[in-house]
């Protein structure tokens, strides 16, 4: 009986390994190429459809946002005729460094990295630099190393969109509050910057406090704001979690007409917008980010100039 079980296990593992081989077309072929000869720019074999291989290290595929981003990248790769090798770091910084090293071993032409963390990814970027493979960062940046281009949502523009919406709904000079994300995080910084670009002139921001992107803290912070500033008519929260927390606080204190704008367009927030409880939320477009990443990679491989930072537009979700 045990013997049978063991053989079944063997068969299962064997089948997986065989199934895998079909999923990696050509991985055996180009992997043997000189890794130091990947200085693509020298690859002047002008044919537009030179078979490029792009490695993509993604932070996690356990999050719908990144799955959508991956799907955008894969669809674009197919359209452009580029081979793409995806590796999933499962939110583990160490695994991401290993993953990128494995991509280097395969001699890919360019590596797209969606970092799990901006500081820990630096080693991976330097390894790719040492191997002469260009790196493009996606959604999150790298604190160091040589990066060809960074592709991410235009958070500043998103903050401006939120500010504009509040002005449109409340009129110039309305008293509003800002609930900030984790201090120092790029999202909080940029969203805040964009919002204040608008608010400084067009609105009166009477309170700015942090709730660390957290729903429960958003609730607490909003309660405090309402205690000290009962006259506010609008709120901009740096993410939807805090916006939803603020919404709870507002509704609990009977201020149903408070105009709240969030950021991220999470499912909960979109439902709240549809129900007329939130005024709006700013949506990132992960598919577009994925597509843009592949387009930038191809442009670079074909020796075109690419910008250091390529902002991807956002979309306003409102009633």
């Amino acid at each position, binding site marked *: 009986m045990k013997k049978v079980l063991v053989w079944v*296990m063997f068969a299962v593992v064997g089948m*997986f*390994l065989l199934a*895998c081989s079909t999923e990696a077309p050509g991985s*055996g072929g180009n992997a043997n190429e000189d890794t130091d000869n990947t200085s693509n720019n020298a690859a002047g074999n002008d044919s537009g459809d030179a078979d490029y291989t792009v490695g993509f290290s993604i932070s996690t595929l356990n999050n719908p946002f990144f799955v959508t981003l991956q799907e955008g990248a894969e669809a674009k790769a197919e359209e452009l005729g580029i081979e793409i090798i995806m590796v999933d770091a499962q939110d583990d*910084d*160490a695994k991401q460094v*290993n993953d990128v090293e494995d991509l280097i071993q395969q001699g890919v032409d360019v590596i797209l990295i969606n970092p799990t963390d901006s500081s*820990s990814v630096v080693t991976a970027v330097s390894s790719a630099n040492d191997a002469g493979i260009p790196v493009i960062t996606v959604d999150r940046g790298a604190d160091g190393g040589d990066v060809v281009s960074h592709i991410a949502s235009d958070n500043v523009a998103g903050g401006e969109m939120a500010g504009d919406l509040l002005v449109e709904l409340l009129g110039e000079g309305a008293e509003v509050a800002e609930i900030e994300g984790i201090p120092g995080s790029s999202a909080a910084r940029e969203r805040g910057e964009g919002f204040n670009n608008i608010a400084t002139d067009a609105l009166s921001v009477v309170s700015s406090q942090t709730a660390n992107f957290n729903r429960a803290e958003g609730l607490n912070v909003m309660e405090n704001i309402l205690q000290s500033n009962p006259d506010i008519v609008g709120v901009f929260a740096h993410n939807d979690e805090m916006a939803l927390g603020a919404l709870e606080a507002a509704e609990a204190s009977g201020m149903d007409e408070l105009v709240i704008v969030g950021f991220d367009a999470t499912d909960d927030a979109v439902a709240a917008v549809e129900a007329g409880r939130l005024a709006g939320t700013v949506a990132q477009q992960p598919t577009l980010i994925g597509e843009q990443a592949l387009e930038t990679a191809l442009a670079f491989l074909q020796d075109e100039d690419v910008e250091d930072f390529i902002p991807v537009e956002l979309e306003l979700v409102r009633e």
Partner: protein
Amino acid sequence: MLSSKQMKSLLATIGPFIGLFLIVTVITILNPSFLSLSNVLNVLRQVSINALIAFGMTFVILTGGIDLSVGAILAFSGAVTATLMAAGVDPILAMMVGLLVGAILGAINGLIISKGKVAPFIATLATMTIYRGLTLVFTDGRPVSGLGESTLFEMLGRGYFFGIPVPAVTMLMSFLVLYLILKKTTFGRRVYAVGGNEEAAILSGIKADRIKIYVYSLTGFLSALAGIILTSRLNSAQPTAGTMYELDAIAAVVLGGTSLTGGRGWIVGTLIGALIIGVLNNGLNLLGVSSFFQQVVKGSVILLAVLLDRKKTA
């Protein structure tokens, strides 16, 4: 002609080698670049962190225990070292403090288990949560970066020693020392004795409690070493570093043929077990297998090893 008992022990000894050989063969056939020198060195470097933890785990499991807190100790020690370095403390001192902290956290495990008479699984499940929590408190949940320039510290995770990655050298040196400790010293024999039959060991004059405290301290120390190497590799300490590493370490020990009931096993097997896991991680990546599938394959291999192990000891 070998007796069936000898056959079984022979199988237990060479089983892990056969497994590693088979996996390497299959992956090499599917992707010849797997066996290139640069990739072999790559795998050795990737394996080193898990292997160091797994070496300690071998000692713990030999005494009949288990340590679930190793990943949390790794994170805490890394965070302590990184924080000290970021504050401008001499890197060597910072690393020594980190190693000491790891050994102390391990000793606390040992004390709870031996003096407190708490089952190792429960004791380290609790300390895993405590140590991870302390790491988050200590770092405020954020990565510690800005470690300053220290060639020595950078070498530890990213350097090369005669073309061999330094983490791999550290792993092999540690392996050699631990192999000798286990094989040639009284302490090593006592570890086996405590795991084999604790009562008999105590009756023959072995201070089982003390052995356990030493063993858990050693594991804490090795986890801290792994944590410092990881911190150097990432050039920052991540509060979530090492999450679930305890499982990879236990898997390496089990794949190597060490019995979870204690008293039987060897550290050579653990090295091979860690290599099997590392080769699977790297090979499946090279073959472009999706990460979800990789987990299925890894789990299946571990299950297979345990089934085979049960077969030979049944």
